[in-house]
């Protein structure tokens, strides 16, 4: 059995009267592919935001590879190897796709970004193009973000997050806003690219077919709480999950 790479212990988070996380405890093995389901406001994105340092839990601990990261900033957590993509892709609108990728590569080196080394040096441009090729979006390299289809923007968002040496990748609704017929090809591309990086993946998703096809284990969130944590078939056949999340109960 693989060692645990990410552990959360009794995470609690409230925003005023709204409880966004209630005793959330998970232990994610290294190399696993897990998914998270739940209706809007169930606490999935809050979980992602807490793990990546965007918001701090009121109580509880988050351990990455044994290191307590609960109070670390997003930047520190990113440098440790936990990366994320966003439900709405966070890209630099005035830069081209290639330049977005070059920004990511410039930051995610072993050494700090340089005041002298050209960002557009051939070796770095080649590396950026190679990453874009892994996601099969290299043909758009010279386009601004406003010119890109939604699916391509999603892929670029993930491609930027994966540069360097990520250990855990959190994908927040990677197929949202993407046409139904493009969801599986997009996920195929993402999972293929991520598998080459040997990275632990946790993704938030609403499409149960994608959950079943791509994840080994599912966390079902309801009202800030994990109400099921098991293999996809087990979780999706759970009566409570069907009642509160998937709505498939008869």
């Amino acid at each position, binding site marked *: 059995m693989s060692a645990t790479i990410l552990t959360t212990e009794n995470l609690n988070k409230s925003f005023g009267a709204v409880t966004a996380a209630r005793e959330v405890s998970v232990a994610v093995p290294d190399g696993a592919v897990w998914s998270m389901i739940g209706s809007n406001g169930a606490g999935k994105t809050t979980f992602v935001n807490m793990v*990546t340092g965007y918001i701090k839990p009121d109580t509880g601990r988050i351990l990455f590879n044994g290191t307590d990261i609960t109070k670390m900033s997003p930047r520190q957590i990113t440098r440790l190897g936990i990366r994320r993509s966003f439900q709405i892709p*966070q890209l*630099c609108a005035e830069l081209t796709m290639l330049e977005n990728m070059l920004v990511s590569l410039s*930051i995610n080196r072993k050494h700090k970004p340089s*005041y*002298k080394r050209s960002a*557009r040096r051939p070796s770095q441009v080649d590396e950026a193009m190679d990453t874009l090729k892994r996601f099969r979006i290299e043909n758009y390299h010279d*386009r601004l973000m406003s010119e890109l289809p939604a699916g391509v923007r999603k892929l670029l968002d993930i491609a*930027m*997050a994966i540069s360097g040496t990520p250990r855990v990748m959190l994908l927040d609704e990677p197929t949202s806003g993407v046409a139904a017929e493009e969801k599986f090809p997009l996920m195929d591309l993402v999972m293929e690219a991520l598998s080459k990086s040997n990275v632990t993946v946790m993704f938030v998703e609403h499409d149960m077919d994608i959950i079943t096809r791509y994840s080994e284990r599912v966390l079902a969130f309801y009202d800030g709480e994990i109400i099921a944590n098991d293999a996809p078939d087990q979780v999706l056949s759970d009566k409570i999950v069907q009642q509160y999340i998937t709505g498939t109960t008869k």
Partner: protein
Amino acid sequence: MTEFIFPRSIPLACALALAVLVVVGLILPDWAMFLATMAFSKGMVALGVVCLMRSGLVSFGQGLYYCIGAYASGLMATWIGISDIFLMSLLGIIASGIVAVIFGPLLATYRGIFFAMLTLSLSMILYGTLSKMSVLGGTDGLNVSAPTFLGYHPEGRALGLSLYMFTCAVIVVYGGLVRTLFDSERGLISLAIRDNELRVEYLGTSVRTEIAVTYIVAAIAGGIGGVISGAAIGHVDPEYAYWTTSGEFVFVAILSGYFSIPAVFLGSVVLEIVRSFSNLYFPNTWQMSLGIFLLIVILLFPKGLGSLLSRSKKPEKKQ
């Protein structure tokens, strides 16, 4: 992506620019040489504003460093009797750098109008302080003795020409360094910060540090600009820190855009020419002339004069 018409080799471009400026200087009449020296020194300060604009910030208080540089050199000449332009410039860099190191990290936590107003307030605090300090000349300011150049004491046209040449050398060297910075990894990160700070933080670098460093780079440019202006005019006063002076630098930065460094100095020269001639022919309405001129530039070149010096690669057709 923008490709620049100028040679990609920065040292070659700098050498070429310096050669052209030197030749032009030799044939310029005295009044034009003075105008160019002033325009270039103010262009240095505007270049600092451009550095900040690349990160999405506008400083309305760059006069702070312009004034610090000018007073540092003026006081050095008055109190210690040192008038060597190289030493004066060094002191201007040190003085403005120290102040920027103190305020940079604090200001780097603010954005938008808050950053603009805080920079403005700092420069106005200096303006008020200098105006009330009789030991520093109060509102009358200080006279600055004619600069020397490593033991060379030029007079008359030779003085103006020497200062012009020194200014050209400074703007070419600093321009080359800033071009290197703009093309570097950090330079590209600055543009990314302008677009999306959240993304940059989540890629693993500190936005605050990047902005603080840019602020210091901008302050040093302001300090050198102040030293040269003080030496060229032979006088420094608190007006250097006044908000309208800072507004001029923002004016030049908007006029020039933030893609081309030569455009910043070109924009500064254009401003000086427009102001000089407006002042001559419309002494009571020259500010209005400047405003109309800026409006025309914004309408015709929304990305500034720099867009004339660069060309954008057309996007490939969709497949």
